[in-house]
């Protein structure tokens, strides 16, 4: 507390250091030093900017003013570095308060920070006035005039002022300030007289020093603490989160991150959002389609109207059952179907359902082309098979020496013609509404047979290979088509009487094709009560042909063709002449005839709503193909599938065992391998041979003897 300017700083630092240490203790002695020095430097800066005159009161006032400008509650909460001693100093002023009435710092702290333990507020009125004014400063220099008045107040507390002043010296950095302060300090140091004018300058200097420190730019990040704190506190005051003290670190982090993110934002965002925009563009195209058509639209509309199903209506009913894709998604699918019908010559179209996949999903549309407008089918597969057969035959002819294999590849069962059986409808799929529709190839019986034996997830890409045992002949598009065929055959049902057989029935002899394939809508259908539909399953019938285990709907007798080949070959036949004809349940059989799965009924019927039964609809859920639903309100009905595309089996899937090794060639001595004789056998053989030779020699000798004897005679 001595008056010399040069050692002043040291002493001040010392005192301040003590102040800091004794901060928590809050003894009477220490508080003297811990007067909010850092507040003062901050405000001191302001003071400097505006003028030095109102320093004194400024020093006191800024304490609270500074506190408020920093954001009131920030005091104890900010994780600001140590040099910022406003926190520390804020609590200590309180004991000083009784001594220093005009300073008003303690009452200010009282008001602004909760940490500060309050002693009595000595002279609240002038202080409060000043504090009000101070609080309005907020880094502005408005309180000049006010504080100027207050500058007189420190007069009263000379020694205290001195102590305050000393406490404030701790942050002294700038020589300029020092000199000025020292001058003012010098004045202050005159005990009890006129010290007030000097003291503020000391405080102001310290404040300025502290502020300067805070403004120092970090070498790493280019930020400075002052700005960061002010941003953070501004953010907190703006947003007012709950329990700010608990998340203060997060807020600090967020503020820091906000500085940096702007630089990189542009690049990253573009990449990420591109796919979104792409798809949005495509879907926008869907909505715009209407305007592209020309004058012919009206004409086409008439035709097209029949083709396009009322997807929204069906979706509404399915929603009652709790099944559906959401209204906007369904509407987009609706538009996509419209696009499909506009671009292809389609007689009838139906939204079949959605099959989920690993990477992407499939939206499936069931389509029937107009008569004669079928697109050509791809016949590559058949051609390949024929070629292979020919080649193998050629090989055999060339090398007759090789034993002929008895193996004959089982006759490939030809696929059904389009518009019949499993290929009755053509299916289009797309991954998302807005993407182009892709036509699925027709299904072959072999594919169905093998699809029954494997269980694989769909990936969402039509060209993905299916790696399985037994090997599936085709890629994902074929597997998808096969599963669609199976699901349709198993779960497409309609109320009894909705469809009836066409009047032109084929002859009713057992022969295969065409007998009961055709059905048509019954114009006299009067509808069935919903309750009836729910109670018994016999009111529902399958309207898709059952697929036989052969893989076709209509039996193909492969024996017939075999007969021709048999004439050419040897008579050795191991195949039976007669293959039993497979028979499946005829079309339009009620689903009550469906087989149970262990003890589970194949279908579950529900009313869509138990609360309002009079308007409820009947809902059927398949237990065999989970995800297949059908509804009917008595007159209308619809089928739908949404799921992974697999059948339900209560037992775990077991992959089929490879067949036993086939006896391809007749085993006989010609081709059977003989073991080479072992050593003992050879020796035994040799011994036997020698024995024979010996015996032969003896015989010869005896014969010779006999001959000789004869000769002699």
């Amino acid at each position, binding site marked *: 507390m001595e008056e010399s300017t040069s050692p002043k700083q040291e002493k001040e630092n010392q005192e301040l250091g003590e102040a800091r240490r004794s901060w928590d203790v809050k003894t009477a002695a220490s508080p003297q030093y811990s007067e909010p020095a850092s507040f003062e430097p901050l405000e001191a800066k302001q003071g400097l900017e505006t003028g030095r005159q109102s320093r004194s009161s400024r020093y006191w006032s800024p304490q609270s003013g500074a506190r408020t400008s920093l954001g009131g509650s920030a005091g104890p909460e900010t994780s600001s570095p140590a040099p910022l001693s406003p926190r520390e100093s804020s609590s200590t002023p309180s004991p000083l308060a009784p001594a220093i009435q005009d300073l008003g710092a303690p009452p200010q702290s009282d008001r602004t920070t909760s940490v500060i333990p309050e002693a009595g507020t000595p002279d609240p009125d002038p202080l409060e006035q000043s504090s009000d004014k101070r609080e309005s400063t907020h880094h502005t220099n408005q309180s000049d005039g006010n504080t100027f008045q207050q500058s007189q107040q420190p007069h009263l507390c000379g020694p205290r002022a001195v102590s305050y002043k000393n406490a404030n010296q701790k942050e002294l950095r700038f020589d300029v300030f020092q000199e000025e302060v020292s001058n003012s300090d010098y004045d202050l140091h005159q005990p009890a007289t006129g010290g007030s004018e000097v003291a503020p300058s000391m405080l102001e200097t310290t404040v300025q020093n502290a502020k300067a420190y805070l403004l120092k730019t970090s070498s790493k990040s280019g930020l400075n603490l002052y700005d960061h704190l002010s941003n953070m506190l501004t953010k907190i005051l703006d947003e007012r989160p709950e329990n700010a003290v608990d998340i203060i670190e997060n807020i600090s982090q967020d503020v820091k991150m906000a500085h940096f993110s702007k630089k990189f934002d542009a690049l990253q965002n573009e990449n990420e959002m591109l796919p979104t925009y792409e798809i949005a563009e495509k879907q926008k195209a869907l909505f715009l389609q209407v305007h592209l058509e020309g004058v012919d639209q009206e004409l086409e509309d008439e035709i097209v109207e029949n083709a396009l199903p009322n997807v929204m209506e069906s979706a509404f009913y399915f*929603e*009652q059952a709790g099944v559906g*894709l959401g209204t906007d*998604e369904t509407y987009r699918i609706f538009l996509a179907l419209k696009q499909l019908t506009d671009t292809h010559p389609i007689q009838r179209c139906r939204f079949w359902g959605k099959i989920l996949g690993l990477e992407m*999903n499939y939206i499936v549309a069931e389509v029937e082309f107009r008569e004669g407008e079928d697109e050509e089918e791809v016949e590559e597969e058949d051609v390949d098979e024929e070629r292979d057969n020919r080649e193998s035959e050629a090989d055999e002819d060339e090398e007759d020496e090789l034993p002929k294999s008895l193996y004959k590849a089982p006759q490939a069962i030809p696929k059904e013609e389009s518009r019949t059986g499993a290929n009755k409808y053509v299916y289009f799929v797309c991954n998302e509404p807005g993407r182009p529709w892709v036509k699925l190839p027709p299904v072959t019986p072999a594919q169905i047979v093998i699809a029954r034996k494997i269980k*694989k997830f769909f990936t969402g890409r039509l060209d993905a290979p299916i790696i399985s045992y037994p090997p599936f002949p085709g890629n994902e598009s074929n597997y998808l088509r096969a599963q669609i065929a199976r699901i349709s055959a198993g779960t497409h049902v309609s109320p009894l009487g909705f469809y009836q057989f066409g009047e032109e029935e084929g002859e009713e002899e057992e022969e295969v094709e065409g007998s009961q394939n055709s059905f048509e809508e019954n114009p006299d259908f009067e509808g069935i009560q919903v309750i009836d539909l729910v109670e018994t399953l016999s009111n529902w019938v399958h309207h898709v042909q059952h697929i036989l285990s052969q893989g076709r709907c209509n039996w193909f007798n492969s024996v017939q063709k075999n007969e021709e080949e048999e004439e050419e070959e040897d008579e050795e036949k191991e195949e039976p002449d007669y293959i039993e004809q497979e028979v499946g349940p005829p079309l339009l059989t009620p689903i009550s005839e469906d087989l149970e799965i*262990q003890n*589970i009924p194949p279908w579950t019927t529900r009313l869509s709503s138990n609360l309002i039964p009079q308007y409820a609809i009947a809902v059927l859920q398949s*237990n065999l193909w989970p995800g297949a639903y059908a509804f009917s309100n008595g007159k209308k009905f619809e089928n739908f599938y949404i799921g992974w595309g697999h059948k339900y089996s209560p037992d775990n*899937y077991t992959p089929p065992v490879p067949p036993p090794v086939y006896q391809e060639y007749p085993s006989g001595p010609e081709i059977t391998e003989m073991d080479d004789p072992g050593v003992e056998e050879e020796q035994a053989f040799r011994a036997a041979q020698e024995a024979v030779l010996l015996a032969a020699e003896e015989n010869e000798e005896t014969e010779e003897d006999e001959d000789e004897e004869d000769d002699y005679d």
Partner: protein
Amino acid sequence: MDAESLLLSLELASGSGQGLSPDRRASLLTSLLLVKRDYRYDRVLFWGRILGLVADYYIAQGLSEDQLAPRKTLYSLNCTEWSLLPPATEEMVAQSSVVKGRFMGDPSYEYEHIELQKVNEGEKVFEEEVVIQIKEETRLVYVIDQIDKAVAIIPRGALFKTPFGPTHVNRTFEGLSLSEAKKLSSYFHFREPVELKNKTLLEKADLDPSLDFMDSLEHDVPKGSWSIQMERGNTLVVLRSLLWPGLTFYHAPRTRNYGYIYVGTGEKNMDLPFML
């Protein structure tokens, strides 16, 4: 999914096709509110629907302040009256794991399971067939517990752990970014961590202890048991579990909407390795 945002959540989760009918939705909105009040839960989640042969079970879960504390499970057959289910005990787990097949839909239905047990009678030891009755309610508890442990997930950053222990909802969670949303590592299992301790120190060093305190989906066995897709043109990321088909998790990137719902038969897909 949170009962408070039920309608939006149902709309977002509708990509899997199975949701709720309007009357169920309406009754859920009202009844879940009452459940929250009556049981004094901090949050009520609509967990999903288990399809039975005769009727469906609608399941809800209530959470207390600590998000990772064991959740209380309630079930209802009509979305109006809810009954509390007992927590899963080991005995229940052991018993119910042998039951297979679909749920009936009747909580008092009893499954019969025949077990061979060795019975000592005097000096003889012979096997006897014992018929064990397992109530469907027990099985329900078991299945819900299994599904929760295996596939209930939340995005990274949605919960944070305080040093005092309890886990809280992170109010500053703003959603995952698009690139993060496509990675499996941004999603955590919504349960006490099991594998976290097995991580190497190197991996642990990168983790933020307040956010990364649960197992991520990256190391789920078998690999590929989750299907991640972007729907609605990249504005919605949907994860579907292949191990428990029917579990759908959705999240709209850059927003706070996320949740999961299970609609299915309550059977584990044991064929998964064959199907991948």
